[in-house]
């Protein structure tokens, strides 16, 4: 059972706290994604699991054994680096075989393993090439191959797709997921790209400033963000976040931004009677705002008049960037048949049963 457990792990670089009191559990054979903006401590966390950096406080366990004082090579882990870190003076075969040679594995077994990994990754015809003769995508596969041949207990991947072009990234994303299922390994995957996290992670851990903000299955973070940061980070385009106050009216609570007044359905938010006057942030994802012309009718929808600033047809949908009354900027993902045009008024309809409310003072979601 190759599970990885971090208990109260803290790492400081000088006065900067990179990771603070981190508790994390990676289950056996799980693909866990550590995601967050640059400098959130995700790579540091990965390097500590690898043994390349030592935690200042706390402890790391792999398969229940403390890794205190255990050298990287003795942890039985493999890591894929952002810049691939291939050995430039070795050909592809030797790049993949090097770790096994260091373990003094018999040559025949090394060859069998390298060939097997090369087959999985489709790089059999590249084995004699040096890294400088490879494209970015090929280098990426070799880096992955170098990890696979080791058959480690745990794979650590540090933004392995970030140097690839968009198309190749999508392709490799699917391929990585496939390889994960095929070799059934425990993987800790670091990325700053929320799309990568959502599509690949069986579980996502979202970090900021060295602290875990929320962890759970991708849809859990998407549907129930615990705070404003998670709400804004997960989802693309980002959730619309509008500042305002809660006002109690004769027919229930509503959100009031000064220019916009939106009634807040009780079945979504419960009774807000006691929260009158509270400073809040209303969050609605672009995909929950539709061109009114194509929106279903319903009581739990808010209608919003706005002027279209940018219209981006994506084919399957159209992104609208609009300015509502009072200058509030809103993004909407609408039906591609929309007639919205630059500078023209457009009426939007937001699904309030999917909206979120956050307490502005604490940043936490209001349940």
């Amino acid at each position, binding site marked *: 059972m190759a599970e990885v457990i971090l208990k109260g792990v803290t790492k400081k670089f000088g006065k900067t706290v990179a990771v603070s009191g981190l508790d994390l559990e990676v289950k056996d054979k799980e693909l866990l994604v550590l995601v967050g903006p640059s400098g959130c401590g995700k790579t540091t966390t990965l390097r500590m699991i690898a043994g390349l950096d030592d935690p200042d406080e706390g402890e790391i366990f792999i398969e229940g054994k403390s890794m205190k004082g255990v*050298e*990287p090579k003795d942890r039985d882990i493999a890591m894929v680096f952002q810049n691939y*870190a291939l050995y430039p003076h070795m050909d592809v075969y030797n790049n993949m075989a*090097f770790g096994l040679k260091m373990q003094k594995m018999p040559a025949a077994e090394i060859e069998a393993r390298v060939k097997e990994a090369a087959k999985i990754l489709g790089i059999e015809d590249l084995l004699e090439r040096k890294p400088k003769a490879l494209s970015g995508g090929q280098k990426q596969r070799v880096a992955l191959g170098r990890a696979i041949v080791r058959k480690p207990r745990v794979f650590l991947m540090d933004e392995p797709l970030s140097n690839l072009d968009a198309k190749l990234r999508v392709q490799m994303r699917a391929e990585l997921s496939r390889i994960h299922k095929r070799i059934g390994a425990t993987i800790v995957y670091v990325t700053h790209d929320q799309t990568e996290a959502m599509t690949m992670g069986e579980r996502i851990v979202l970090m900021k400033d060295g602290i875990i903000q929320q962890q759970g299955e991708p849809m859990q973070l998407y549907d129930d963000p615990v705070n404003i940061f998670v709400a804004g980070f997960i989802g693309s385009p980002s959730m619309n976040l509008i500042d305002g106050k809660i006002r109690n009216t004769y027919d229930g609570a509503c959100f009031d931004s000064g220019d916009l007044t939106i009634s807040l359905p009780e079945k979504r938010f419960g009774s807000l009677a006691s929260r009158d006057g509270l400073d809040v942030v209303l969050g609605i994802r672009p995909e929950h705002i539709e061109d009114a012309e194509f929106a279903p009718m319903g009581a739990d929808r808010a209608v919003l008049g706005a002027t279209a600033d940018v219209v981006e047809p994506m084919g399957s949908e159209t992104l609208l960037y609009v300015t509502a009354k009072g200058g509030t900027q809103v993004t909407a993902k609408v039906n591609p048949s929309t007639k919205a045009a630059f500078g023209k008024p457009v009426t939007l309809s937001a699904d309030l049963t999917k909206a979120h409310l956050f307490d502005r003072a604490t940043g936490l979601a209001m349940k």
Partner: protein
Amino acid sequence: MARTLKVFKNEQHSTAFFALLPSFAVFLVFTLYPLLYSLSISFTDAGLLKQGSTFIGLSNYVKLFKDPTFWKAMLNTLIYTVAVVPVANALSFMLALALNRKLALTPIYRTAFFMPVVASTASVATVWFLFYDPFYGGFNALMAKIGISGPAWLSDPSWALAGIIIMAIWKNLGYSMVIYLAGLQDIPKDIYDAAALDGAYGQRLTRYITIPLMGRIFSFTMIISTIRSFQVFSQVRIMTGGGPTNSTLVAVYYIYRQAFESPYRLGYASAAAWVVFLVLGILAVLEARTMRRIEQ
């Protein structure tokens, strides 16, 4: 804005021309002209104290090849080079490896090892001359303490060249060390991290990762230090004057003697200079080719 001259395609060309002009002029006057001049007088009987010269064809070269002293000087230069280049480079690489860490005293050590490179050869040679003194010098005093009676160093024909070589190794350590340090710091940290996970530590890391990645740097320092070794002159002039019995006579010192000591044969010295130049050129090319083959 300066008006562009018509001979130039555009302003960039004229800027380049005028920027390069001063150094090109210096090269022309102090390198190319003397080079060609020395080639031309190597076929004459030109002398330092003599007016005019006569064309004598290849006589200087024939005489040179028949002069055992010249061959002695070439052999000494070769011994000096073969001893200094590998030893100094191996030691400076080891020093660079040791000093490529962030330890408290690292900057002090780096400076200490680089200081002899900056110091003038003349003053360093004078100090070492005193060290090597068989009766009052530091070396033999140290050796006496452990019960070894030291040689007469610079006045013993079988030890004098060794004395010059030891000093040269010490003086040149820092030069290659600085280049090796720069090369070591150029190796991406990721590669070392990957190697650590692959199980390459200590000597294995040096052997399989660091040394192969330093290939080009090795080529560069080996060739440069071979050239520098062939040019050895000052310490020989100051410490031994080529003696005793020509045991430390090196190529450049031989040339110097022909030209600036009686009978001041400039033409003959130029011929010797050209032969040394060609031998060094061939050596450097061979070395570069070998290094490239090893690299691949």
